[in-house]
């Protein structure tokens, strides 16, 4: 175990540090990066596909799509760009901006290595955190890849982090998801085939290229070996980013971070409340982008959920009717439910059925998943609130909401 302190985010490691290796003295420059990790080997496209398949590598942005399948979906020729999605729009997540800020060369190794293997002339890094953007720009000056690497600032809104919204922003368009469901692997950057993935995915690729499938598989699950980055926050003594082997028990991570007993949200504000925390191991797809939020036991759970619902509604891009009207209705439903109105509970259930699958992106789906799991897991609190007296606890704001919604 090591403990590091940088960029106001604590870093910790359970087991062997890979992505966080060498970060104990802050940002890793080119020289220190090479000293820690060694040089990036030049691999072919076939080698990357084979490696990604052998270790079952999945995208680390939340959707957990297998990297090997994404590579296989690209055409043989004419791949225009490799895009590093560093917009990290989930409000609690810190892992991506932390990697961009402290280990930019690892990410650039992963992205440029893959771009060369794919014959893609452009590498684009979409970032919305100014410190992260500066670090990546400095890193580009420190190295010579013979590729056009560009850093673009994207807006921080929740749905702006969606893959196709990022592509639209990179082309100078609005940072909102387009209405047609077109895959970036077919029509991405400037309508050309594009490989886009999350920041951590590229760091994992850089580690994988060096270690090979056998070395990469020396830790973690057999089905999905290696390590993962988690962000833990809420009612915990030691919030921050943790690198762990895949498949680590949730209980171990909660204990490690000093979490208070109480409900746990896995996967961020598009994730779910867990009915119990024991006997659960952290792996994709459930762990999503690696966000763990401990609620503790002295705040009103439904009131906390209502605050987050307000924020989720405010983050709709405003393009799709069911998302705009549905999320606004759900905010109102939860408000009435918290105040003890049974009609609020009934309306919430009906509206939760009308939101998923009815938008250009997964924002309505994820928001509904979060709210539906709250109604399930906080059944006892629902009963207390509907009985008229509330649950006897105030809303303390344990769940972070950007801008601090009312």
């Amino acid at each position, binding site marked *: 175990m090591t403990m590091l302190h940088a960029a106001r985010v604590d870093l910790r490691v359970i087991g062997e540090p890979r992505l966080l290796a060498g970060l104990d003295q802050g940002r890793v420059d080119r020289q220190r990066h090479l000293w820690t990790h060694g040089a990036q080997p030049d691999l072919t496209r076939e080698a990357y596909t084979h490696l990604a398949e052998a270790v079952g590598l999945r995208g680390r942005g939340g959707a957990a799509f297998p990297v090997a399948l994404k590579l296989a979906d690209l055409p043989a020729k004419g791949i225009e760009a490799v895009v590093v999605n560093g917009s990290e729009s989930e409000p609690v997540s810190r892992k991506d901006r932390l990697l961009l800020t402290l280990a930019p060369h690892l990410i650039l190794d992963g992205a440029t290595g893959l771009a060369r293997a794919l014959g893609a002339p452009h590498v684009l890094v979409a970032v919305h955190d100014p410190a992260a953007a500066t670090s990546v720009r400095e890193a580009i000056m420190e190295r010579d890849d013979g590729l056009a690497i560009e850093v673009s600032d994207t807006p921080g809104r929740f749905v702006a982090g*969606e893959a196709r919204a990022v592509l639209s922003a990179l082309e100078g368009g609005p940072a909102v998801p387009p*209405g047609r469901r*077109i*895959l970036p692997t077919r029509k991405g950057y400037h309508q050309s085939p594009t490989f886009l993935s999350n920041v951590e995915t590229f760091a994992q690729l850089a580690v994988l290229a060096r270690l090979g499938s056998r070395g990469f598989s020396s830790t973690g699950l057999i089905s999905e070996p290696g390590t993962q980055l988690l962000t833990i926050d809420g009612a915990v003594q030691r919030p921050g980013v943790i690198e762990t082997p895949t498949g680590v028990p949730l209980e171990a991570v909660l204990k490690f971070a000093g979490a208070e007993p109480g409900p746990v949200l896995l996967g961020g504000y598009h994730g779910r409340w867990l009915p119990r925390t024991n006997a659960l191991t952290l792996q994709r797809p459930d762990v999503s982008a690696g966000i763990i939020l401990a609620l503790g036991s002295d705040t009103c759970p439904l009131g906390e959920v209502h605050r987050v619902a307000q924020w989720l509604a405010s983050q709709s891009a405003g393009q799709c*009717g069911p998302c705009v009207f549905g999320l606004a209705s759900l905010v109102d439903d939860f408000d009435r439910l918290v105040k003890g109105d049974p009609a609020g509970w009934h309306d919430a259930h009906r509206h939760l059925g*009308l939101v998923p699958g009815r938008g250009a992106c997964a924002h309505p789906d994820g928001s509904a998943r979060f709210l539906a799991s709250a109604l399930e897991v906080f059944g006892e609190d629902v009963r207390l609130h509907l009985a008229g007296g509330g649950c006897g606890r105030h809303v303390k704001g344990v769940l972070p909401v950007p801008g601090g919604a009312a």
Partner: protein
Amino acid sequence: MNKLEIDWTRCDGHGLCATLLPDDVVLDEWGFPVLRGREITVGELPHARRAVLACPALALRLNAPAKRD
């Protein structure tokens, strides 16, 4: 594989689709279409195409979307 789909970024809830294709589209409480999601048979295709052309927002479409993010 012919299915109706909606470009939600375009749909303004005019509701013509629910009138023209009552077996496949109903409207929710906000006036936006809820699709039944079944396959459109070959015999129904001409009528479904007419409904697609009638959508004032050009939001109603026919065909199988690629699934994945």
